[in-house]
């Protein structure tokens, strides 16, 4: 019985890719082959989700069935969605997939305190770089990963409330505009994803993390310092007061409120124990110098 007679065949999700980035498993389904092919290339070295069970599902789908073929526009869906999310052209399908994964983390992640931040590590010590979009986090993290640091994250730092450790989430680094050329000058073509022009955020190209970043992505690290980089100013480094760090980090977190007291305990522990610096920099080489100096002074 069970209403079986009435069932019409639902359209099946045509193309599927599953991947684990750090501790988080994703299942991405798409009405088109192209975004999945791009993901398969960028995430070729990454494992499947633990036990084959993804934490989050992302769907890339056509707004109307005929839009699979006519001016194909990619809608972003999944376990957690924003109703106002506008579609992207099919050529930007990889970006749509990345945005879908970001959305699941931002809206659905409850295991870790999530900070909108880049993270690099050396000798078990993690530097957390956070600040507003456009502050050059991603470019800086990518460059540091080419200067002997391990790339742990370029978008989200995952802090475990139980241990205070930061877990790696080394997704493909989303380079934007000027950052694209800066990094492309230093890495072979095979390390780069397709060039995505005219996206809502300008020109985007993904840097595929190096083998160390992927091989060590299950190794968490102890946070050692919090840096707030700001691009476009004369070189300056100043210590930031704990209350200001606290406010900035609550604003940089998408799930601080949802974590309740665990979030409060995690953040207050961080701001009362970790040194924090605002780093103004005129160019990326200066910024790297300042990060090295901060690390050396720990």
């Amino acid at each position, binding site marked *: 019985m*069970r209403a079986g007679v009435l069932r019409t065949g639902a359209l099946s999700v045509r193309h599927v890719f599953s991947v684990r980035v750090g501790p988080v498993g994703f299942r991405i389904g798409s009405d088109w082959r192209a975004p999945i092919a791009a993901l398969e290339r960028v995430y070729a070295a990454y494992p499947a989700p633990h036990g084959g069970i993804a934490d989050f599902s992302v769907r890339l789908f056509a707004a109307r069935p005929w839009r699979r073929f006519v001016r194909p526009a990619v809608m972003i869906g999944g376990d957690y969605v924003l109703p106002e999310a506008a579609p992207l052209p099919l050529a930007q399908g990889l970006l749509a997939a990345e945005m879908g994964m970001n959305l699941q983390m931002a809206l659905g992640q*409850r295991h870790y305190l999530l900070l909108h931040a880049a993270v690099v590590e050396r000798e078990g010590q993690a530097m957390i770089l956070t600040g507003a979009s456009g502050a050059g986090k991603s470019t800086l993290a990518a460059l540091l990963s080419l200067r002997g640091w391990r790339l742990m994250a370029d978008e989200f730092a995952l802090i475990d409330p139980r241990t205070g450790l930061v877990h790696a989430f080394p997704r493909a680094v989303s380079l934007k505009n000027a950052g694209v050329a800066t990094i492309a000058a230093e890495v072979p073509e095979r390390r780069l994803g397709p060039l995505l022009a005219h996206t809502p955020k300008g020109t985007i190209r993904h840097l595929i993390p190096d083998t160390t970043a992927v091989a060590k992505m299950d190794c968490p690290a102890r946070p050692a310092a919090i840096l707030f980089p700001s691009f476009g100013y004369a070189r300056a480094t100043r210590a930031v007061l704990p209350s200001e760090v606290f406010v900035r980090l609550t604003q940089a977190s998408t799930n601080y409120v949802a974590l309740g007291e665990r979030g409060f305990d995690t953040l207050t522990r961080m701001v009362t124990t970790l040194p924090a610096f605002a780093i103004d920099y005129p160019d990326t080489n200066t910024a790297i110098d300042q990060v090295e100096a901060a690390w050396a002074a720990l």
Partner: protein
Amino acid sequence: MGRAVDGWLLASVMRTPARAADLEAAGWTGLIAIARAEQMIGTLAARLQGLAVPAQVARILDDARTSAAQGQIAATWEAEVARRVLSHVGERLILLKGTAFAVAGLRAGLGRSIGDLDILVPKDALARVEAALLDAGWEWVKPDPYDDAYYRTWMHELPPLIHRDRDRMIDVHHTILPPTARITPDPVALLGDAVEIAPGMFALSPLDMLVHAAAHLLADGDLAGGMRNLWDVHCLIEECGTDGLEERARHHGLEREVARAVRLATALYGKEGSVGVVDRIYLFRLTARDEWGRATRPVTRMAFYIRSHWLRMPPGLLARHLWTKWRGGGAGPSSG
């Protein structure tokens, strides 16, 4: 599970948690996606607590339980703030739906996600309550005058208010169905039989909770969120029984809706009951999800959307409402 995955997967695991032991990776992934789409992941997690599940699933369910608990803290606090505000204008706080279940410690509240704060006040207190809420930091969500006039003229609640600091919505009802519905429940009886569930906080009597759940699902809504709503019904029946339910439902003019809600809840979550052809169409619509949590069966969905408007508004009003919505660039039901 040898057949295509749909909402029945979630229903069967909710009914018999031990069935989860048969699930393989794909089954778990589908179950989790469907439970999230139905906003029942916390309820599922509460139901499966203590059961042996794969490590990855255990983590997801553990997070869902913690998340639901935190959500209930926030929801309960909204109720407390509303209680304080209403105390200044001499009104009792009568909670409806999820917040009532959670504060009362009912089984229906276990792991339940709670969105807006829904409260019931006497119709003649609406203006006072509205003024007190506005004074305490709530603001109108919709500045659009058409929507506002629509609510005030045709709905059973104030236009939704949102708190400017806490970003939480409150729905202030004066009865449980809009005046445009053909059925007019008895608000005096609802208010009169309300019971105190915490100091200064009241809820409808258990029978009226059941009547309200049925009215909300079958006489007011487009069945969206129906699986969760029927889980509420199932839990209320299990915990509070159905003695006197038929008579109470008749008193409110909702005997058909209540009887159907009981049959549907039993079919989904209870012991195998007998359902007729019409019930099966409801169940078909209620369980329309695929293993990605996608809403399937769009034709049935649209039919229920139109039907729900029909139930709440006389036909001329429906046309006027839709026209204003279309002209304003609004859309019909989302294809989720």
